[in-house]
């Protein structure tokens, strides 16, 4: 299956990962200037934390995207957890930083965090089912 078909069959998952890569890249490069809400709420260590957040978020996005497009849940799942953490972190820092003005960004980001977490849980549940149905490694014919 080509990348176009993969994109057509997983448009939301792809865009969640792409947004994580772009936002994470911005955070990694320009630090706390990426988000006013984040820099306000993390006053003091905001720049260092924004860099760490950006790198982690971008790495999560890359893992999620690569795993999704190569059908490797061993990469997609950790990517999903990290992306979920990145979105969750942004949602929980932008709202205290900007107050009511940060609600829109916080809600969108928080929803993506919950969505990523639910997707990760679904993959984990499926993996457990498959492991229960088939014999473990080494016992396969």
């Amino acid at each position, binding site marked *: 299956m080509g990348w176009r078909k993969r994109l057509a069959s997983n448009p939301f998952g792809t865009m969640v990962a792409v947004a994580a890569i772009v936002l994470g890249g911005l955070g990694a490069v320009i630090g706390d200037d990426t988000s006013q809400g984040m820099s306000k709420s993390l006053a003091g260590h905001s720049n260092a934390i924004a860099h760490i957040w950006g790198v982690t978020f971008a790495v999560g996005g890359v893992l999620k995207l690569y795993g999704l497009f190569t059908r490797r849940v061993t990469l997609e799942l950790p990517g999903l957890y990290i992306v979920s953490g990145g979105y969750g972190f942004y949602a929980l*820092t932008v709202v205290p930083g900007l107050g009511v003005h940060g609600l829109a960004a916080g809600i969108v980001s928080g929803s993506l965090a919950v969505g990523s977490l639910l997707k990760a849980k679904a993959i984990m549940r499926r993996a457990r089912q*498959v492991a229960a149905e088939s014999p473990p490694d080494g016992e396969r014919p």
Partner: protein
Amino acid sequence: MTTGSDIVVSVAQFAAGGTIVQAMVAIFRRRGELRQLDRQIESVAIDTADQVVMMLHAELVDSKEEAGRLKLERAGLERQIEALTAQMSSTRTELTTTRAELLTARADLARKRDRRR
């Protein structure tokens, strides 16, 4: 910054750290299960590809059979055309002969009329 905000930011840091730990747990402790799922997804993809190839093969065989039938049909039609062409040329020959006979008969008739006069 208020105490409430501090708490929320702490929760955010805890949540982000928690998801990284979760990701590491997924990589190191659940790797076996995830690999099995990878293999299953791969085998499902291979099965689907196999089915598609088999369908295409069946379609190819059907198409070949149909092409053979059409070839036979075409050969039959060509034979029919040849027979009709031969029939047409013999009919033309007969027509020419009949015309010549008719002309001869007319000439004879004219000669007989001349003699009577």
